[in-house]
Structure formats: C-alpha cells, structure tokens
C-alpha cells in the first residue's frame, strides 16, 4: 500500500503543480493509528501529508457537492464504493463530471478498528501495515501477523465492487473481485427469518438507541438533498417530541428515500455512534429490488434508470406475487 501511497502523493502534487486541478480531496493521518480522515489540499506542499492506508475508509465523493459550488476543478481519490457513490451523485445531478478529476484506487479492503480493539490488539499499537492478505500489528514489543480477512470490515468481506467503476486515472492495478465465502445477503436473511413480531421488536430496540445525531444521513451519498425533509419545518413531518416513534419514522423514511439509490457502501452502519445496523434496512430493499426487477446496482452504470423510478408494463406487482406482510 505504501507504494501506492507514494503515487497518491505524487499524482496530487503534479495535478496541483500543472494546474490540472485547483483542489485535491484525499486522506491524511490523525493522532491515532486508526485515524485517517479527509484532507482538502490546495497547495503543492500540502500533498506530502496525503496517505493511503488500511483506514482510508471515509468516502470523499459527497464532499464534492460543497466543493463544486465554487468555480474550481477538484481532484479526488475514490475507492470502489466511493466511485459508485460518485456515480449516484452524478445521476442525482449533484456533481458536475466535467469539474472533477477522479484518481481511482482499487481497494484491498479496509481494517475495522473495532475488530482490532475487540481482539485486544489495540493497546500500545504504533502502526498497522497491510499487504495483500496479511495484516501486521506493530507495537513496542514487536510485530504480530494475522490474516487480513479477520480484521476487515464486514462490508468489505462481501464487497462486489472493490475497483472504481469510474475514474480518469487508475493509480494501481485492479484487485480481484472479492471471492468471498460469506454469503452476500447473510445479514438480511437473518432478519427475514424472524417472525413479524420478532422483527418488529428487533427494530424497535435498535431504533430506540438512536440519538438523532444525523451522522448516517450526513455520510450517505444517496442522502444528498439540498434540504432534508426532516429539516424543513414547513413540511411539518418531523415532530419535536423525544419519542421512539419519531426515530422509527425517520429511519424508515430514510430507507425509502434511498431505496434503489443506495450504493451499499455501508457507511451508515459504520458511522452510527450507537451501533444501529442501518445498512441492513437498505440491503433488504436492495435484495427485494433484485428479486422483483432483476439486479440493479446503484451507481455502477449511471445511464441506467433505477427500477423504482421507472415503470415498465412487464414490471411485476409485488402485492400480487408476495403475500401481504411477507418476507
């Protein structure tokens, strides 16, 4: 990864130097080993701080909405899931393709700090290095090697699009599509197996944890509205009371608003500070759409219209094909 990181820095430096772009969106390192956060760089020398490591999980594409309001050209580093997000933003007319230069980064999968902490390896950790399928934890005491799969994000384990689906320049060789042993919809099927009552109880419990910090909404590349309906006091949809039904309403409406547009980046689950498995809701809808209308991977091909936004005569009628209150 370090070799590619050098290329990231060099590419960014050159792009700013020769005026190809006015601003670079990348990642830089924070205070902690797991801390790789978005960086906005306009000066050539700033590019030295750019990194590419196993914690560059943050999706940079959504920042483009704000950045592109200025009349500038922006260079951005995008992974597989980030690139799908970019395409979805393109589809929703939220970004201007002509004002963006995309440096594609085939993604080997990111490390989940929570898994590291859970394994008791976080104490005294200085650095984490990742090769193709190995991860090395370096402490003062020495090095420990593990299989990288053990510490990858769940979403990375089932990732179907590690390589960017859109880019101007690809900075590394494409990685192989994840031949995962994990079944793609395992998480959804766990929910589907529950009885309606169990399922209701499950979600009531999950949503009761919500503190309405809006992190899920802010990180979501499909949640790109100029003004969210929940922030529009005139719309009168959001109540002010701190009751569970308000949170439930918010999350269900959000799931429907991103239905057919969710690029399955899993960021909503990742950023949730109270650990609500939000992506499960979206993935259930993706699974249903696939079953009803055939595979539609939002953000993979922006020229295709989403099945829920179009009507074809041959479309199935889910109310006829599925029993009421079905799976």
């Amino acid at each position, binding site marked *: 990864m370090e070799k590619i990181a050098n290329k990231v820095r060099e590419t960014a430096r050159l792009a700013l130097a020769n005026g190809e772009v006015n601003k670079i969106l990348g990642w830089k390192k924070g205070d902690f080993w797991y801390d790789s956060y978005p960086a906005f760089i306009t000066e050539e020398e700033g590019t030295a701080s750019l990194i590419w490591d196993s914690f560059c999980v943050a999706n940079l594409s959504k920042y483009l909405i704000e950045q592109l309001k200025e009349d500038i050209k922006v260079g951005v580093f995008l992974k597989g899931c980030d690139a799908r997000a970019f395409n979805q933003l393109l589809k929703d*007319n*939220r970004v201007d393709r002509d004002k963006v230069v995309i440096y594609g980064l085939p993604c080997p999968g990111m490390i989940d700090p929570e898994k590291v902490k859970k394994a008791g390896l976080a104490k005294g950790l200085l650095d984490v290095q990742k090769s193709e399928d190995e991860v090395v934890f370096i402490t003062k005491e020495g090095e420990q090697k593990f299989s990288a799969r053990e510490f990858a994000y769940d979403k990375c384990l089932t990732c179907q699009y590690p390589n960017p689906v859109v880019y101007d320049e690809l900075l590394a060789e494409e990685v192989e599509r994840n031949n995962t042993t994990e079944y793609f919809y395992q998480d959804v099927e766990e929910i589907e197996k529950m009885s309606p009552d169990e399922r209701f109880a499950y979600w009531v419990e999950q949503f009761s944890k919500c503190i309405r910090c809006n992190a899920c909404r802010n990180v979501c590349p499909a949640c*790109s509205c*100029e*003004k969210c*309906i929940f922030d529009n006091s005139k719309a009168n*949809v959001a109540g002010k009371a701190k009751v569970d039904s308000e949170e439930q309403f918010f999350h269900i409406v959000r799931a429907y608003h991103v239905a057919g547009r969710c690029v399955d980046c899993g960021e909503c689950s990742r950023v949730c500070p109270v650990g609500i498995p939000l992506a499960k809701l979206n993935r259930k809808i993706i699974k249903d759409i696939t079953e009803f209308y055939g595979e539609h991977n939002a953000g993979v091909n922006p020229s295709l219209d989403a099945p829920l*936004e*179009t009507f074809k005569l041959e479309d199935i009628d889910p109310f006829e094909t599925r029993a009421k209150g079905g799976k």
Partner: protein
Amino acid sequence: MQRIGVFVCWCGTNIAGTVDIDQVKQAAEKIPGVVNVQDYQYMCSEVGQNLIKNAIKEQKLDRVVIASCSPRMHEATFRKAAKSAGLNPYLVEIANIREQCSWVHKNKEEATEKAIALVRAAVAKATLNTELVPGEIGVEPRALEIGGGIAGIQTALDIAEAGYKVDIIEKTPSIGGKMAQIDKTFPTLDCSACILTPKMVDASTHPNINLYTYSEVEAVQGYVGNFEVTIRQKARSVNADKCTGCGICTDKCPSKKAESEFDEGLRKRGAIYIPFPQAVPNVPVIDREECLKFKTGKCGLCERVCPSGAIEFNQEDTLVTQKYGAIVVATGYDLINLDKFGEYPYTEHPDVITSLEFERLTSAAGPTAGKFLRPSNGNKPKKVVFVQCVGSRDKSSRGKTYCSKICCMYTAKHAMLIKEKYPEIEVYVFYIDVRTPGKNFDEFQRRAVEEYGVNYIKGMVGKVFPEGDKLQVHGVDALSSETLIIDADMVVLAAATKAKDDAQELGRKLSISTDANNFFTEAHPKLRPVETHSAGIYLAGACQGPKDIPETVAQSSAAAAKAIGLLNKGKLVNNPCVSQVDEQICSGCLACTKMCPYEAISSQVIEVKEQGKIVKKTVAHVNEALCQGCGGCTVTCRAGALDLKGFMNRQILAEVDAICL
C-alpha cells in the same frame, strides 16, 4: 382566524337516514374557525345554494365546507355558487359524507362519528386552502375518432357537420366495422348494407373528414384541447393515390389460401385483397404474411398486371403526428373465442357456427350468395338449432358474467330470416331468458314465435354430438323437465360479446380506464355516460359495453355533441391545482421528470445566491399547461420540493391529523 361556514346536506334520506345531522352540526360548531353551521335537505338545489351564498355574504365567510356527496358529483356546483357570492371557488372544500360514509354504513352511531371526522378533516384542510386562479388554454378545433365502425362513422359525420375537422383511424383496411358484416337489422329487418354503406361513402367524401384506414394509434400525448396523437399507417403495399380500385390485382393473385376476415373464414381471399366489394376506401391491401412475393421473393404478378402502377412492395409504415382538441373512442367489440366450449363442437364441426358466421351465410353478398346452406356439404338444412347465452351470463372463467344484450334480438331475427325464406326448415331456440326491452323489440321476438312458428325452448343445451351427417343436440326443456334430443343439421351459437383484446393497451395510451371486462369505463354510469375520466376523451358504441345498433348510434351522436361542445369553446379554463417547485429546496435530481405521466416537468438551470455567492443549480420546472395535478411528482420528491396547489402536503397532513384526532 378563519371564518369557516359548514353546510351539512341531508341528501333527502341518503345521508340523513344513516347520519345524525344534528350531531354533525353540533360537532362542527365546536371546531375552531367555524363560525356558521347550517343544514338543508338538498344543498345542491337552488334553495340550498342560496343558503350558502347568503351565508358567505352575511357571515363574511372566507372558507366554505360542504358535507355532502362526492366532490366528483357537486364540487363544481358548489364552487360556482361560492364564486357568485364573491368567494374564490378554491376556498370551497367538500366532506364526502355520502359515498364514503352514509352509503357504506348501516350503524347510525358509527356513521355519524365518521361523518364528524370527515367534516373535521375538511375543515382542517379548508383552513389551509388558498385562493387559486385558473389560467386559459386553447383548443385545437379538430377531433379524432378511433374506430371506423358505425359508431365512429356516426360520430365523425355529426362532428364534421358541425363544421369541425375529424380524422377517423381504422385498424382494418376498410371502415364499416361489424355492421358491414351483418345481413339484416332488427327490429325492422332492413338491409344493413343499404343503411350503412351510404354513410361510409358520406364519411369518405365529407370535406371535413379524413380517413386513416389500416392505421393504429401509436402514442397519445397532451391533454384536453391539445392532444398530440401519433398515428401508425401500416404499409398497404398499394399506393392509394394511384389505385383506381379496378380489382385486376385481386383477381389475378395466385395465392388464395387466406381466410376472409370479412366473411368470418367462410370464404378464401387473395394475398392482395379488398375486404368486401363496398369497402371504403376501395383500395386493396397486401397481406404480407400470405403474399408469395414477401414470402419467397418470387411472384409480383399484381405489380405486372396493375394498369396504374400502384403496387409498392417496398412501402413502409409511416408515422403521422396530429393535434386534436377531442378524442372519441369507438373501437367496438368482438365475439369470444369458443375453444373452451367443448360441449358444442364448434372448432371441429363446420355446421356448428357462430351468429356472425350466420350473418355471412344469409347475406346476399356472402359466400353462398344468400342461400342458407350447410358449410359441410352445401345441402339445405332441415333442422336448425340456435343456442343463446354461449358464454354470456356465465360465471365460469371461460365465459363472461354479463348479458351480451344483442343476442336475444338477433337470434329472433335469424330464426325469422330462415323461416321467411324456407318455411319448411324447423327452427329451435334454446334460451335462459328472452330479454327484449326496446322499442318494438318484444313485438319482434313474439312475431318469431307466433307468426313464424319458431320453437323457443327454455333451457340449455348439454352437449352436441356429431352423429353421421347430423348434429345430435341434447338439451333440457326446463319448463317440462323433459330431456330433448334434436337431430339438427346446423347449430348456431350466440357467442358472448367481449371487449377488444387490445382495449387495455389503448386505454393505457389514452389514460382512460377499463372495467373488469376490459370495456372502457364511463365517467358516471348515469349522468356522464359518454365521457371518460380523462377530460376531452369520449366513448361511443360497444367499446363501453354491449350495445345494439340503435343504442350505438344514439351514444355516438351524444359523444359527438360532447366533442362539438368542447371544440366550440375555443378556450378552456386550466385546472389551477397543479404542481409547483420550491426552487430553494429542489436538489435537481429530476426523479419527478421520470415519473410524470404527462411530461409536464423539465429541468432548468437557475442562479441562486448562497452565502453571498451566486451559484448555478439545476432544478425541476413544471409546465402548468401540461400538469394534470395527479400529484405523482409530489410523492416522488424526497425533499418535498414539489407540492400540489390545492392539495399541499401540509393540507393532506392536516386532514390526516384531524381524522386521527
């Protein structure tokens, strides 16, 4: 605070019989904003309307809620009344306590409670109503007639006579429809061709009528007064301008295997053919499925013999787009397929025929030149059995639940036609009921029995067995409970009528609805029988339900009157309840443009000020002339940037809140 008046209508006992009007009044008086509550037996009557008008003036009402029937019934009436009293008509709100309450409930207590909730909801919505002002749109002074049967011809002639241009689209190569196939018409037994063909000629020669035969509706866009219809003119392979209709090509065509559609398959026709001698236009068409030139590349005989060089093998379908102010749908009907009626060996035995085939067999212009002969051997039959209700009034899935309406009369006619020409033939009619309402209809049927000695047997036929060269008909006389076996020579089946197979597809193109049997639905079964729910689209003839010729012609002239009324207006008032975009909130995702069925939403780039900077952004833009106010876009818009005037999201939510109270 608003000054809202609530007017509760009894609708005679329609509402008052199930809803306690006094309780509704008392509850309404307590709703904040309501300053005046009155009730009356018939609010829609002049006295009732005056009650509302006076209250608006005297009580200075700024909103009016009328608890009465469905807004589809009288919203326009009450809006007009409000307007005449100086109130913007869109400040009137209807609480439907008839169709949605009194008519569907029996328990007075519960119905009253529901009526109160509906009034509360209407008041909640009315509180948020705003004044709306409709715009004006022009009307294209041209009508389109879909279907060239008697219904289409009659409507077109009436509209043309009123001075407006009419185009007729006919799917087959000639106008005329089913009536052209019929021999004689009931109840007068006059010749169908004699009364129809002059009308066909009138239609083709009228300066205001233009025929598109062998053509279909490809697409329909636009709205009342301004429809834009794309017509597909199928390739005839014959140049209509050059063709003189001499008929040499049809005589010489070596391929004579195709079954004549006009003669119901009882005669063969060439691959190049004119459907029938009186066809309009008198121009042949090449059936490309049958033509040797198209099938094998060889032949081309017609091209060589045509004296005017009218044969054009390389002709292609052409698309014509034309604007219309009004559309009349008159696509007619068909008979059901009898494959599933195994008890009558229709598909196996040539002497078991449908009533329409019978028409061709007795027609002087038919395959037997009017001689009534058995299709199997050409001999004259001695006994003929008619079976009525084959698939009509049939609750099984193979038939139709409705009465086909025309069969009792035409079967009596058929029986009489046989007896008239050949009194020695024995004629039996099996029936469930004989239904002959209509002017001179019952007299007609009785003549068949009393004067012509037709044997009417109440009962159904169980099975028809081919036995030697006879057809053994096993039936039951329900009145005597006797089992009957009749050795018939021919069996004529009164097959049920059905809507055209492509009715739904056409309905979809026109945005008009079809019922469970695929017949087009009229806007109101009693008061708006020729209108559809889509403004500017009217219905004529059997496409709306089974009909005989007199009824069809009456409805056609009614549809014409409606179309003329529309075309004559010149200008229409726009529905002001259209969508509007809040450009500040719109993110420009344009999901609405994809969902809008009227293509009323497009995108535009605007400049907005954001934190002191001018920023360009894409937003949705509603064409108010095209928007029909369906509200589809408002639910597509995630941010709620689209809202429907008159039905704003917050108005709907206020209604919901009021009901849930």
